[in-house]
């Protein structure tokens, strides 16, 4: 009898735990209006990059006179916030939008080590040389995208005011001139004890 009671109790506990488990819900990216965090989150990167892409397209400075796309390299985007964030979140969405616009092609020679390493296949007799990159055939970048993300915090009327600033520049590597600069600010008002790191 005791054995049955134990089995019944274990079953009841498992059932109870299962009932207490919180539901996980999916959020639609397109109309996500759920509560925002004080720290930087995906939606902040999305709105900052969208505003800057729209500005680049409005300005039209990324349109080469001959209609051909520019070759762009992603340079350093500095994270000067108190948070450990992956700045690729910002640069990735910008490069995707620019590539889709047809105005830019991105060279990955910095990020993808295989671009440089594949030149070693030239010496190998094991590989069909038809697919091996010829010497001097890598496309050199003409433009460079660089920037900085900064954070400032203030206590105003018992609330914490957090200001994030996304600054990006596109520089013409052939003459060093900046052809586009954009800045997007995201300001948040949170509880004064809100943690942003």
């Amino acid at each position, binding site marked *: 009898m005791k054995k049955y009671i134990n089995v019944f109790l274990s079953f009841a506990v498992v059932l109870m735990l299962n009932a207490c488990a919180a539901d996980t819900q999916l959020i639609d990216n397109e109309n996500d209006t759920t509560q925002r965090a004080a720290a930087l989150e995906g939606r902040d990167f999305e709105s900052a990059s969208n505003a800057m892409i729209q500005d680049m397209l409005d300005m039209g400075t990324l349109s080469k006179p001959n209609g051909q796309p520019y070759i762009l390299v992603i340079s350093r985007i500095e994270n000067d916030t108190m948070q450990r964030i992956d700045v690729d979140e910002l640069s990735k969405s910008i490069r995707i939008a620019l590539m889709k616009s*047809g105005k830019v092609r991105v060279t990955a020679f910095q990020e993808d080590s295989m671009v440089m390493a594949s030149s070693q296949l030239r010496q190998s007799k094991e590989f069909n040389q038809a697919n091996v990159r010829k010497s001097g055939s890598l496309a050199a970048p003409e433009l460079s995208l660089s920037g900085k993300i900064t954070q400032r915090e203030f206590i105003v009327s018992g609330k914490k005011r957090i200001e994030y600033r996304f600054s990006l520049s596109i520089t013409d590597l052939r003459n060093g001139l900046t052809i586009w600069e954009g800045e997007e600010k995201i300001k948040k008002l949170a509880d004064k004890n809100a943690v942003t790191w």
Partner: protein
Amino acid sequence: MNRKFIFGALLLIWSCAAAPLEYDHTKFSITPDVKLLSINSNSVVRERDGQMSVQVSGLSKTNQSIYNKIEWFDVNGMKISTSLAQWKKVNLRKNSEFLWNFTAPSKRAATYRVYITDDIGNGII
């Protein structure tokens, strides 16, 4: 006597009812709760790079917070996928003019449609 009074009252109510907003339904999709007095759009294709730019102008009837979004379509009417087609919250002021500028995400864009609503839900699906 009663009939005349009811008819007169109905006529009065009907004449006071706001005229429905007239707009180009091929270019705009506006939900009924958005209160506008007028809305128009003007598009140009930039000579320099063949990119389409659109300016939407209008007049708000009340102070309100609304969301707008623009979708772009190619010559075949197929939607062009872009991260820029996101809902954007905008505050409009009563009897004030608003101007929104949009530039197409690529040269493929041939037509567009602007969506305006006051409620996009909370996104939980």
